[in-house]
């Protein structure tokens, strides 16, 4: 009897699973049973026959999934079906096979070559498709060897290095309890599938395969495994005590999910009824639907960089009007949308702006600072927002990033008014007004909050950059991970100062950084007097559940103690105690 092995990986899809392991191994024949190999006159004929058969199987899988209403997954198999008979893959495989005489290895090498090329593309979605090509290669190889997949016969947790989509699709519904991978990434197909099925997934689990394979007696019963897709914890061969712990988490999660569903349709508030606005961050107009479905009361941060990146010429005014109008219309007059002016600087390649390379782009000429020398970019954007507000019949909200001084605010306001005058001069319709705010992410703006608050309509604190600037710790530098914590009391004191300045002038304060989406962070922020929390759509349930568990007096006390705490870890413990209902 081997003892429990505790491992951890990267959380991919939330949920708890406890059950027997189903081990899939794409490289060995472990996950497959032998049938009859393809008989053919030549390596070329064998490869062509196997490729055609593979394409037929993949198209069949696509049809089956479409029949189950899983259209998005079906599309993956349509694409894989085309890959199986793609000339780029087959010509290379046939050339390799005619030299080596080994069609299985030739197909594997050809698929690997194409996959490596896709993986090297500077495009996250396309490079993730590299796994699809490898999967197609492995599948043609299985057909060539005459092997068929050995699927789980009882509900199981899939354990593998990576789990290709064509394998997961063949597992009957209900037989997949969870997915635990030693490799993979959070954008892997298996993770996307797990989320759509509502089952847990964890990727990048070091030591997983050794722990499972090392403790599975050949021919014996499969080893048991327990996983928590939220924390990334995995236990191979859990003891009774650990299994009971995971069962308890499973019950807690069911309660939290029920709470979240119940709270989604109500105005978010603390347990004693104080309203807090809970809104979403979005990166493109296409994100609107997901944000609305998650119960967002509006958009606290509509990033507009997507309009400016990956192109050779700046977006036209009309193109921008369309993008903004779509979002403003989707949310309507009752759900305000805050459009953030382009946050562009020397760290991003924007060829048409001819930005000078800078030693420290995060301390350089970026965002609003660009507008002193070159106001056209922001003027065009502001004209587009004035027009989009008129077209959608709503009052648009805008905010400028990287504001450091009162001069920056005055520049913003003058550009806003100049943009309006130009349009009015041309007789074009403009929104009735534009609610105008600034991002507070530069420490000087936090210090100047009382003065800046008198000039504008709202503050929105960007906690990610504020943390980086307050603690002088580069966000991208892993060696400084300990300093990149927005719950550090130094950052919280800056936020408290911003809230005090805003209160004196009577304007609201939002937070749109990652801290707002963390349930513990949300409690601390509302304790500090923040009025609005803006986070990714997937985080809104967690924020509402956390708020509904705490009262105003508890949150006041939490804020008071957090500001005096020695470090971020101490703040996290204080907030966790409030969330758990056990503050001392």
């Amino acid at each position, binding site marked *: 009897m081997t003892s429990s092995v505790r491992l951890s990986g990267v959380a991919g899809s939330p949920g708890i699973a406890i059950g027997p392991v189903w081990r899939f191994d794409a490289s060995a024949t472990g996950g497959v049973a032998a049938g009859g190999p393809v008989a053919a006159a030549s390596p070329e004929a064998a490869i062509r026959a196997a490729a055609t058969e593979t394409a037929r199987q993949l198209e069949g899988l696509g049809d089956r999934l479409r029949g189950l209403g899983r259209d998005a997954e079906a599309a993956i198999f349509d694409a894989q079906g085309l890959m199986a008979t793609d000339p780029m893959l087959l010509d290379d495989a046939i050339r390799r096979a005619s030299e080596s005489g080994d069609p299985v290895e030739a197909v594997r090498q050809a698929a690997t070559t194409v996959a490596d090329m*896709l993986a090297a593309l500077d495009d996250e*979605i396309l490079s993730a498709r590299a796994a699809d090509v490898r999967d197609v290669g492995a599948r043609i190889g299985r057909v060539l060897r005459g092997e068929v997949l050995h699927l789980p016969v009882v509900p199981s947790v899939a354990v593998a290095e990576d789990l290709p989509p064509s394998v997961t699709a063949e597992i009957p519904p209900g037989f997949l309890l969870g997915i635990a991978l030693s490799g993979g990434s959070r954008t892997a197909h298996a993770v996307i599938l797990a989320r759509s099925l509502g089952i847990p997934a964890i990727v990048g689990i070091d030591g997983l395969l050794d722990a499972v394979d090392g403790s599975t007696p050949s021919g014996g019963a499969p080893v048991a495994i327990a996983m928590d897709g939220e924390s990334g914890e995995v236990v191979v061969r859990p003891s009774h005590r650990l299994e009971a712990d995971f069962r308890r988490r499973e019950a807690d999660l069911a309660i939290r999910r029920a709470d979240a569903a119940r709270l989604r349709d109500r105005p978010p508030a603390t347990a004693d009824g104080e309203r807090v606005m809970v809104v979403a961050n979005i990166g493109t107009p296409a994100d609107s639907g997901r944000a609305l479905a998650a119960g967002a009361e509006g958009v606290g941060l509509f990033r507009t960089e997507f309009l400016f990146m990956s*192109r050779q010429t700046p977006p036209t005014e009309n193109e921008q009007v369309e993008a903004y109008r779509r979002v403003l219309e989707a949310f309507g007059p009752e759900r305000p949308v805050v459009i953030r002016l382009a946050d562009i600087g020397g760290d991003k390649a924007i060829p048409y702006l001819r930005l000078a390379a800078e030693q420290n782009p995060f301390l350089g000429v970026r965002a609003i600072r660009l507008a002193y020398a070159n106001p056209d970019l922001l003027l065009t954007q502001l004209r587009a927002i004035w027009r989009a507000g008129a077209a959608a019949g709503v009052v648009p909200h805008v905010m400028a990033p990287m504001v450091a001084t009162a001069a920056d605010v005055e520049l913003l306001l003058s550009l806003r008014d100049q943009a309006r005058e130009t349009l009015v001069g041309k007789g074009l319709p403009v929104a009735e007004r534009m609610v105008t705010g600034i991002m507070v992410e530069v420490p000087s703006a936090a210090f100047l909050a009382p003065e800046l608050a008198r000039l504008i309509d709202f503050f929105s604190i960007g906690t990610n950059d504020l943390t980086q600037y307050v603690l002088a710790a580069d966000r991208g530098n892993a060696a400084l991970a300990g300093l990149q914590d927005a719950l550090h009391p130094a950052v919280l004191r800056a936020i408290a100062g911003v809230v005090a300045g805003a209160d004196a002038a009577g304007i609201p304060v939002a937070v749109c950084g990652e801290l707002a989406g963390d349930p513990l962070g949300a409690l601390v922020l509302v304790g500090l007097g923040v009025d609005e929390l803006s986070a990714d759509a997937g985080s809104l349930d967690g924020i509402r559940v956390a708020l509904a568990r705490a009262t105003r007096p508890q949150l006041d006390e939490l804020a008071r103690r957090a500001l005096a705490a020695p470090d971020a870890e101490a703040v996290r413990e204080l907030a966790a105690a409030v969330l758990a209902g056990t503050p001392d």
Partner: protein
Amino acid sequence: MRTDEMEIRNPSGLHARPAALFVKTASGFASSIRLENVTTGSPAVDAKSILGVMSSGAARGHRIRVTTDGADEAAALDTIRDLVAAGIGEDVDG
């Protein structure tokens, strides 16, 4: 031989699903059809190969050049132009 340039409007570019529809459409013509990503300057690929089309790395906002050559070259180019303008089966407004 005919050629034209067009802009990719799909939110995620020519990834798996639109690439599949693009290739299926191109494969319906007898003409040879080539595709180049003008924005990145990547080499021309066979528009009837999904791996070729995906490897062109055409993202939203990129311009592609399509060249058709053969008996039905005019119809092929017109059909592809319409397909790209319509968002290659995706809701480009959504």
